[in-house]
């Protein structure tokens, strides 16, 4: 479970997070939906302790990230934006490197890597250096890195950006699998279809604040609109910065 309480963060002149509170539960997919510049990435970075909030705190399975960062991060897997691949390593080396950093022994890391490679159908590229990978291949490698150590909580920052339909479907299936296994999945997006198709709970964000929380259906009902997109526009009160 990921819980943030009263998070505030100022970056330069911008109030990126403004008294933000929400929780993402185990066994659910939670979508952080907001226009560009709403503070989604800042929020996720704060959850990982990479940014220090001016106010408030974030807890991972009840562990405060600011107080015990290593223990809290042990419960987290990150699918970052941008991916941050090591171009000269092969996916197998890359995935098993991060597995070891999460405390797996060398042989356990190898096993875990092999099984995640199989799960994501990465076998054909697993022993090629990441240089020159397509966006879909990069996505799968980065995703494998995020789930190889089976963390309870998986955080994805804009996971579907630049993916074709096939890759998007693979990603969706994996996220549903993770949810069914009882993981807490939190992802940020500004793509309505993704959020509508996947999420049990949507957190609509604008200007660093939570505007609305609820399932996609509930949000439509709340605003009296037929589609999540219309509901979203209604909620944030502007049509600025939305990618359909």
């Amino acid at each position, binding site marked *: 479970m990921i819980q943030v309480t009263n998070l505030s963060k100022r*970056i*330069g002149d911008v109030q990126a997070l403004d008294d933000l509170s929400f929780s993402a539960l185990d066994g659910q997919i939670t979508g952080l939906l907001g226009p560009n510049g709403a503070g989604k990435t800042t929020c996720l*970075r704060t959850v*990982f*302790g*990479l*940014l*220090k909030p001016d106010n408030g705190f974030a807890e991972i399975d009840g562990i405060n990230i600011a107080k015990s*960062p*290593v*223990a809290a*991060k*042990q419960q*987290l897997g*990150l699918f*970052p934006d*941008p*991916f*941050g*691949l*090591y*171009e*000269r*390593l092969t996916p197998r*080396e890359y995935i098993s*490197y*991060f597995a*070891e*950093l*999460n*405390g797996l*022994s*060398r042989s356990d890391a190898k096993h875990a890597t092999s099984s995640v490679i199989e799960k994501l159908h990465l076998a054909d590229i697993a022993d090629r*250096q990441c240089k020159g990978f397509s966006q879909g291949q990069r996505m799968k490698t980065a995703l494998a*890195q995020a789930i190889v150590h089976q963390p309870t909580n998986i955080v994805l920052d804009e996971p579907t950006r630049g993916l074709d339909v096939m890759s998007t479907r693979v990603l969706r299936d994996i996220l549903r699998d993770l949810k069914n296994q009882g993981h807490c999945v939190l992802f940020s997006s500004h793509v309505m279809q993704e959020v509508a198709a996947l999420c049990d709970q949507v957190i609509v964000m604008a200007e660093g604040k939570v505007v609305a929380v609820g399932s996609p259906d509930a949000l439509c009902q709340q605003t009296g609109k037929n589609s999540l997109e219309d509901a979203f526009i209604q909620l944030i009160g502007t049509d600025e910065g939305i990618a359909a």
Partner: protein
Amino acid sequence: MSNKIITMVRKELIDAARDKRSVMAGLYYAVGAPLLMCGMFFMLIGQLTSPEDLNIKINNPQGAPDLIKYLSSKGITQGDADKNKDILLVVSDDYASNMAKGISADVTLIADASNEKLQKSIRRLEKNLQQYSSEMGSLRLIARGIDPRVMQPIKLNVEDQATPDSKAGMILGLATMTMIYAVFISGMNLAIDTSAGERERNSLALLLSHPVSTGQIVIAKIISVTLFGMIGLLLTLIVSKFAYSFVPWQELGFSVSVNSSFIGMMMLVGLPVAIMAACLQLFVSFMAKSFKEAQSYLTIVLMLPMMLAMAASYDIAPDTLQWLPVSGQLQALIEFIKGRELPGMQLAISSLITLAISALLAFGMQKSLKSEKIVFGL
């Protein structure tokens, strides 16, 4: 805890070994620097051992054939008109007759004494003329039944205490400097790649979001860069060992060999320097915003150890330099080369200071990795 450091070091080394730029940076220096030094030694030896023939202009040489023969045996000859060095030696017309009568025969040396370039040649000519003169004087005394030693109330004996190895010290000082500099050059590209490069490729934030402490990350990176620097140093030493064996040292009257005890000493003394080099380069690179910016900063920063090393090897340094990093180690190594006792105390203190500076830099880096400004370049 230490397992994670080993994992990170292993990854850094695999990553670096596949990076042509990182490998080449070390390799070029390791092969290039000793060869360049060798070329320089060849030139130096050529200059030291075979002084050029001195060409002068001589008027009336047929008046003093014996003197001319003596001078030419000392490499002073009447050369081509365009090659002579503006030094004119005039043998007087009555030289032969005065010589025969046993009175002073006039020889005139005409040259511009204010001309700096001629000074050495003039002194050489004067010295040889005086030697010839005293040789003639001795012969005359012997002919008159007098021991020529009455003309030498003082006999000056000069004992040169320089051992062959200590003469080599200056030259090896220069060579040592280029060797120890290898730890700075070899690890440089890796240091930039693993810090500024890692941030540029967005993998730094990912690394930091995993359950490793910033201290572990910093230690792993320092170890990796240090290892690269040490490998570069070892390669440089091995190449030097072979390259220097081709230099005709015997022409200088001493021999210089990069033997295994020297290599061992160099690796031992070089280790703290390599650690400091790694810390310094990583620290500067983390402060830079991009790979290119780090490169240009480092070029300037690397002038510092270069200057310390120069000061030590040319002995133009104030005493305090013997306690400082690089210059302290270098001075100790030069003593070792000269065959003198290794100044253990001085070496220990300068190595400790080197490690203390490294620790400070590492601490600074560990702090900076917690700063949002450094990690995200905000």
